[in-house]
C-alpha cells in the first residue's frame, strides 16, 4: 500500500512539474515581460538592469526553479488586466466556484446513482426507458444550452429563480458564502443543476451498465436462492460490487466539474474563477491563465490521488494484483 502510494505521489509530482513547465513557458514566450513593464522610452541600460532584476539573464533551469519556488508560495505576479496580485483575485473568487462545484457534485452523485440503480432494476419499464432516452439527449446537449433553457424556463417564463449572479453573500472573513442567505441559495439552484446534469447522466449510465453486469453473476442468483429480499440483493450485494468503476469515473468527473464550471459561470455570470479564466483568455492575461492552470492541475492531481487510494482500499482483488506485479 505504501509503495503504491509513494509511486502514485511521484507520478502526480511529475504531472505538476510538466504543467508548471507549460505555465512557465507561457510567461516566457507569450509576449515579452520587458516590453510590458517598460514603456516606449527606454534605454539599453534600462533593459539590461530589468533583465538582471527579473533574473531573465539566468539559465533556463534556474529560471524555471525560481518560477516553481514562487508558484509554491502562491505568487503568480500581477494580472495584466486588473492590475492586482493574481493570488488575491483568485482567493476572492475561489469560494464561489467551490460552492457551486460541491453542490453540483452532490446532486450528480445522489441522483446519478439512484437513477442508475432504478433503470437497471426496472430494465424494461416505461419510466426507466424514458429516463434513458432523456439521458441520451442530456449527453448530446451542450452545457451552455442546458443553462439557457433553464434560464428561459425558470427565470424568464416562470420568474421563480434569478437568472444571474450569486445573490447575497455572507462574509466569513476568508470565505464569502452564499449558503446562508435565501437569495444566495436561490441563485445556486439553476447553475448547480446545469453543471451537475451532464455528470449525473454519465454516472447514471455507468451505474446502470455495471449493475446489469453484476446482476447476471452467480452470487446474485445464490443470494436470491437463499431467499433474501430484493432490497438486500440489490443494495447490499449488487450495488456494493459496482462501486469500483463508479468511484473511479466519479472522481475524474469531480475534476471536470471544476473545469466545466467555466461554461456554467459564463452563462449565469457567476463570479467564480471560471469566469475570471474566460476573461483572462479573452484579454490574453497570461498571469491569470497560468495561475488558473496551476490551481486546477493541483486540484486534479489531488483528486486523482485520492481516487486511486480509495480504489485500492475498496477492492481487495486489486491489492493482490498490484503488489504481485510490483514484486515481479
Amino acid at each position, binding site marked *: 500500500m505504501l509503495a503504491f502510494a509513494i509511486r502514485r505521489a511521484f507520478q502526480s509530482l511529475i*504531472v505538476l512539474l*510538466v*504543467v508548471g513547465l507549460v505555465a512557465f513557458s*507561457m510567461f516566457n514566450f*507569450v*509576449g515579452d515581460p520587458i516590453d510590458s513593464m517598460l514603456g516606449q522610452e527606454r534605454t539599453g541600460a534600462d533593459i539590461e538592469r530589468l533583465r538582471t532584476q527579473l533574473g531573465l539573464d539566468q539559465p533556463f533551469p534556474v529560471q524555471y526553479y525560481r518560477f516553481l519556488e514562487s508558484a509554491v508560495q502562491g505568487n503568480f505576479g500581477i494580472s495584466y488586466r486588473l492590475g492586482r496580485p493574481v493570488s488575491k483575485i483568485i482567493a476572492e473568487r475561489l469560494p464561489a466556484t467551490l460552492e457551486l462545484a460541491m453542490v453540483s457534485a452532490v446532486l450528480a452523485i445522489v441522483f446519478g446513482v439512484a437513477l442508475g440503480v432504478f433503470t437497471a432494476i426496472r430494465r424494461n419499464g416505461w419510466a426507466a426507458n424514458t429516463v434513458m432516452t432523456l439521458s441520451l*439527449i442530456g*449527453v*448530446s*446537449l*451542450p*452545457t*451552455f*444550452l442546458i443553462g*439557457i433553457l433553464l*434560464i*428561459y424556463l425558470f427565470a*424568464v417564463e416562470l420568474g421563480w429563480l434569478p*437568472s444571474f449572479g450569486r445573490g447575497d453573500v455572507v462574509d466569513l472573513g476568508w470565505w464569502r458564502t452564499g449558503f446562508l442567505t435565501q437569495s444566495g441559495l436561490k441563485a445556486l439552484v439553476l447553475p448547480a443543476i446545469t453543471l451537475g446534469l451532464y455528470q449525473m447522466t454519465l454516472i447514471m449510465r455507468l451505474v446502470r451498465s455495471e449493475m446489469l453486469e453484476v446482476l447476471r453473476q452467480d452470487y446474485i442468483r445464490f443470494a436470491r436462492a437463499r431467499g433474501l429480499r430484493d432490497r438486500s440483493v440489490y443494495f447490499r450485494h449488487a450495488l456494493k460490487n459496482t462501486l469500483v468503476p463508479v468511484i473511479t469515473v466519479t472522481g475524474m468527473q469531480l*475534476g*471536470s466539474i471544476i*473545469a*466545466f464550471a*467555466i*461554461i456554467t459561470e*459564463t*452563462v449565469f455570470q457567476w463570479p467564480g474563477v471560471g469566469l475570471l*479564466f*474566460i476573461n*483572462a*483568455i*479573452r484579454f*490574453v492575461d*497570461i498571469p491569470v*491563465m497560468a495561475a488558473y*492552470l496551476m490551481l*486546477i*492541475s493541483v486540484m*486534479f*492531481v489531488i483528486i*486523482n490521488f485520492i481516487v486511486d487510494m480509495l480504489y485500492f482500499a475498496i477492492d481487495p482483488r486489486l491489492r493482490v494484483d498490484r503488489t504481485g506485479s510490483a514484486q515481479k
Partner: protein
Amino acid sequence: MSQETKGQNHQPATSPGETSQAGNRLTRAWSRAAGSDFIWSFKRSPVAVVSFLVALGLVLGAVLAPLFAPHNPFDPATLNLMNGFSSPMQPNAFTGEVFWLGTDDQGRDVFSTILYGMRISLFVGFAAVAFAMVLGVTLGLIAGYVGGWIGAVIMRIADVQLTFPGILVAMLIFGIAKGFTPLEQRDEMAIWVLIIAIGLSEWVQFARVVRGATMVEKGKEYVQAARLNGRGAGGIMIRHILPNVLGPVLVIATISLALAIIAEATLSFLGVGAPPTQPSLGTLIRIGQGYLFSGEWWILLFPSVTLLALALSVNLLGDWLRDVLNPRLR
C-alpha cells in the same frame, strides 16, 4: 475489386454513350454493397437511418448555403436595418418582407445566418478532427511500432493531457495562440487557431487506440513477413499496419466530430472562438442569448435547435458505427 468499383463511379459521367453497360455495372456494385453486413445493419436501425438523413441534410444545407440561403448575411448591401427583429413567418411592419425564421437586430435573415454559420461550425469540426486524426494516428503508430523511449514519452504526454478535460485544453491553447498572433490579425486567424486548439485537445483518443491496435498487429505473421522482405519501418507502418487499425479510428473520428462541433460551439459561445465577422452556430447562440429577456426568442431558438440536431445526429451515427464495426469498444 476496389479498382473495379472506382471505375464504375466515373464511368457514367465520362462516357454517356455506354450508359446501359455502366448502369449495369453500377447496379451490380449497388446490389453487392446493399447485400453487405454494413448496409444490412444500417437498414435495420431506424435510428441510424434517421440520424444519417438529418446529418446529410444539414451538411448539404451548409455546403450549398449560397444556393439555398435567401440572403447573404455577409453582404451588407443586401441588408436593410428596417427589417430588424422581424418575427418568423410574419411580414415586417415597415418593409412587408417575410422571413421564415425571422431576422436579428441588424435585419439579417436568421435562416441564412444559420446556413452560413453551420458552414463555419462544420468546417472547424471536420478540420479539427482531421488534424487530430493525422496527429494521433501518426504518434500512435510510432508509439506502438517503434516503442522505446519515444513511445514512452508520447504516451506520458497523452496521459498528462488526458487528466484535463478536452475543452479546458482547447481553451488554453486558444488563449496561448491568441497571445502569439498580432492584434490586427486575431479575427482572421481565429478560425485556424480554433481548429488547432480543438485538434490538439482530441488527438489523445486516436493515439491510444492506434497504439494498442498496432501493438497487437505488430506480432502477427504478415508484419514479420514484410519485415523479412526488407521493408522499412515507415513502409510497414503505413502500408501494412495502418489499413488494419482504421476500423476503430473511423469510430473515434465520428464521435470526435460530434465532440468537436460541441467544443467549437462552446468556445464561440464563451466568446473565445469564431469572431463576430465569421459567426458559427455558437456565436449565433451567444448573440441570441442577449435577446432572451426581450422576447425575440427566434434569434436564440433556431440556431440552438440546429446545433442540437447536428450534434445529436452525428453522435447517434457514431454510436451505431461503434456497435457495427467494433462491438468491443462498447
